[in-house]
């Protein structure tokens, strides 16, 4: 049986069950998504965007799905102690794809701000959710969108109404937890209305020694003059495959910082698609990848300058060891009429072992003349002269290498505006380089497995 067929069969047979446990707004798009998936199937590696990831192979194994929404017993506070020093957050949990209602932060959010289950939001605010849901992540654009739209039953909803600023960062911990190999389809909807401000921090963890396959489709709307900081930190394990598609649309004068850091994973394919729809909007994308063993990380970004006078910056850095495979494809598109666009894209990579592979593909596609666009990409190793200098001063070679790697990655972290998070990430990255486990410091209790 080919990889597509099991999903086609699954949906054909379980259509009723999936819909019954979800909301009408989400159900409305399923059949169309199914049709798209049935026709197009999984993209082969000949499709430019999927050159570096074999999607069909990742989706081929037989995973279980929790379509009947059985409650998975878990006390997130038992398994997760992310006490980021000096980082006071409003902490929420999503277990697999279910919003954990029992564990809510004590401090309340500003009036009108919602952080809740997408399923509940679709029932309580059908107009609001209906206006945005599925408008950016079109099923016909991409197989992962189609599959997610067809199967996702729940997820997370974040809404910040006009003019509201949420000072305290909203931290969402996604926990993958199951007793069998599990596929999770999660959906995220983030809406910042005009002039709103918010900081979101997503931490991905897998706590069971099982195989996980997670698809996550996020639609993020940043209104006029709004400001969003969104951080994603992945610390799962070698048996986790993650396919994330994030669509961000920005209106005039808005700004966004989107940061994606992968420390531990199995296979990750992160697509970030930013549309600068309004004039004078700005976006900064940061990405950091530290990979060894058999880790595979494929970051694929598109920044679409649709309006004039927008700015984009992009910095992705990879440190690859062992047999890790890293891929970066960043496309900047400046459309006709998007004059005065400024774009800068940088991808720097360190390969530390013979078997590590790096694929880098920074692309510029420009249809307007009054622009300043540049990109740079490097693949190399640590500077021998710097190493020599340090050793001359009595720093052991291993330590010197570590310092240099850490400094190399530092550039990605230093750009993070939230200082407490920056410090925390410095700590995590250093720990990761020291070969220490790749788990968030707080998770030792739960993660006492051998890996």
């Amino acid at each position, binding site marked *: 049986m080919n990889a597509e067929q099991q999903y086609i069969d699954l949906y054909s047979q379980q259509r009723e069950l999936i819909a019954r446990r979800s909301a009408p707004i989400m159900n409305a798009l399923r059949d169309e998504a199914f049709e798209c998936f049935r026709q197009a199937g999984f993209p082969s590696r000949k499709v430019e965007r999927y050159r570096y990831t074999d999607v069909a192979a990742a989706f081929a194994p037989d995973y279980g799905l929790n379509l009947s929404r059985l409650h998975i017993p878990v006390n997130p506070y038992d398994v997760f102690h992310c006490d980021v020093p000096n980082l006071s957050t409003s902490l929420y949990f999503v277990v697999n794809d279910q919003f954990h209602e029992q564990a809510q932060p004590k401090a309340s959010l500003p009036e009108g701000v919602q952080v809740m289950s997408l399923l509940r939001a679709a029932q309580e605010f059908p107009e609001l959710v209906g206006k945005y849901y599925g408008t950016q992540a079109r099923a016909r654009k991409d197989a992962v969108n189609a599959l997610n739209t067809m199967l996702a039953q729940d997820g997370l909803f974040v809404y910040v109404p006009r003019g509201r600023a949420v000072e305290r960062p909203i931290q969402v911990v996604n926990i993958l937890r199951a007793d069998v190999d599990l596929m999770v389809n999660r959906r995220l909807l983030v809406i910042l209305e005009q002039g709103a401000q918010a900081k979101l921090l997503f931490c991905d963890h897998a706590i069971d020694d099982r195989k996980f396959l997670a698809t996550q489709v996020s639609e993020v709307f940043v209104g006029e003059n709004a400001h969003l900081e969104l951080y994603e930190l992945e610390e799962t394990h070698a048996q986790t495959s993650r396919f994330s598609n994030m669509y961000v649309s920005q209106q005039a004068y808005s700004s966004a910082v989107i940061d994606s850091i992968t420390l531990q994973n199995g296979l990750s394919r992160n697509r970030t698609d930013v549309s600068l729809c309004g004039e004078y909007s700005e976006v900064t994308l940061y990405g950091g990848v530290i990979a060894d063993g058999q880790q595979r990380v494929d970051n694929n970004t598109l920044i679409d300058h649709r309006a004039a006078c927008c700015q984009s910056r992009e910095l992705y850095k990879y440190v690859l060891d062992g047999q890790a495979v890293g891929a970066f494809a960043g496309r900047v598109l400046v459309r006709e009429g998007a004059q005065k666009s400024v774009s800068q894209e940088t991808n720097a990579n360190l390969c530390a072992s013979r078997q590590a*592979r*790096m694929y*880098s593909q920074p692309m510029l596609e420009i249809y307007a003349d009054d*622009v300043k666009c540049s990109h*740079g990409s490097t693949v190399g190793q640590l500077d021998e002269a710097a190493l020599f200098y340090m050793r001359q001063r009595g720093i052991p070679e291993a330590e010197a290498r570590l310092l240099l790697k850490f400094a190399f990655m530092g550039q990605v972290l230093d750009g993070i505006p939230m200082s407490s998070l920056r410090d925390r990430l410095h700590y995590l990255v250093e720990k990761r380089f020291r070969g220490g486990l790749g788990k968030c410091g707080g998770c030792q209790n739960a993660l006492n497995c051998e890996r």
Partner: protein
Amino acid sequence: MMEEKNSFVRQVAEKKYEYGFTTDVQTEIIEKGLSEEVVRLISAKKGEPDWLLQFRLNAFRYWQTLEPPTWGHLQMPEIDFQDISYYADPTRKKAEEGPKEIDPELMKTFDKLGIPLEERMALSGTAVDAVMDSVSVKTTFREKLQEQGIIFCSISEAVREHPDLVRQYLGSVVPYKDNFYAALNSAVFSDGSFVYIPRGVRCPMELSTYFRINARGTGQFERTLIVCDDNAYVSYLEGCTAPMRDENQLHAAIVEIVVMENAEVKYSTVQNWYPGDAQGKGGVLNLVTKRGHLRGANSRLSWTQVETGSAITWKYPSCVLSGEGSQAEFYSVAVTNNFQQADTGTKMIHIGRNTRSTIISKGISAGHSQNSYRGLVRVASTAEGARNYSSCDSLLLGSSCGAHTFPYMDVHNETAVVEHEATTSKISEDQLFYCNQRGISTEDAVGLIVNGYARDVINKLPMEFAVEAQKLLGVSLEGSVG
């Protein structure tokens, strides 16, 4: 004032493509269409040995299984491969006529093109192989070159006179299975140049080929094979023009270069095929596969190209760096104006240890044109200490054109250092203002700035070509400012 400016622009536009004449030479053209019979007919007309016929037939059969590639950033018109004549021979007035004599009309053509076929050669010191439509019409300076053991002749002659050499190397760098157009060319190639530089010989003059498509409804499928043996050196130039016709003409060539130990090859192209008119009608479809194999240790190959013509350019001169310490360079200026489209760049495949490659690419787009750089740098796991530096810049003149950069870097060795940088911008207003202030008109100022911008590449061309290339840059861009 405005009117004056417009009239000037119009004048320029009218004179623009000065090689657009056709020559009334009697040409023998075979029926349009492509089939196994046509392949056999071409082979028979050239009196080829059986192995070459089999090579063609294999390529043809393989070609039939392929689809044209669509990955380029190009809007390619559909090509009807059955509506093209695959063989046109301007030298045959009548089939039964005796020894080949060059038609005086043909000589005039090459005179108009400024190609010195006879005595002028002695002054400029360049040996020329001129190819019109499908057939090589004249190769100069052969005897002189022969004294040193250098073989420079048309590939048809080489098949007859040096079959072992041709058989050994033909298809060894670009196999017929390489891609759609390579398979097509391998099936129907009609002529081209063959160069062999023996061991230790430094070729005393520039070798040059001039290509011209003349006959209507024909395609040109030439094939060039250059073999540079140990410690040898050669510099090779290629130029091309075509008449103005309002249909698209197909040009699908293959260039193969083999570079042995310590040898060096410089390959320069000034490509000025007819680009189509200002409305984007007609023009040559330039779909070319060029590749060099640096087999020997410390071998060197440099590609320099100035691409100003063609309605569509699809061309990636590549280097396979197998020899230890081999070095490859790629310098390119691609200019597109009106509705021209170019998707061009290079591939650097590092296989040997301590191999080095440099890529300098300058794109200039004006009018409604689309200009893309597409390049691959691959470092295999065996390429210890490989080094690559790529820089590609794009300049935009006008708000309706596009400039794109698609670099690929695949690094499979931890000791490799690969660097790539690219910028895209328009001509700095400060620079224009500075020139204007000093009494230089905007149009001249743009010319100056563009020439300065392309200098890194033009400096790499042999002198005679550099002058021509500079003029071409000017002509290609005239009328695009304002």
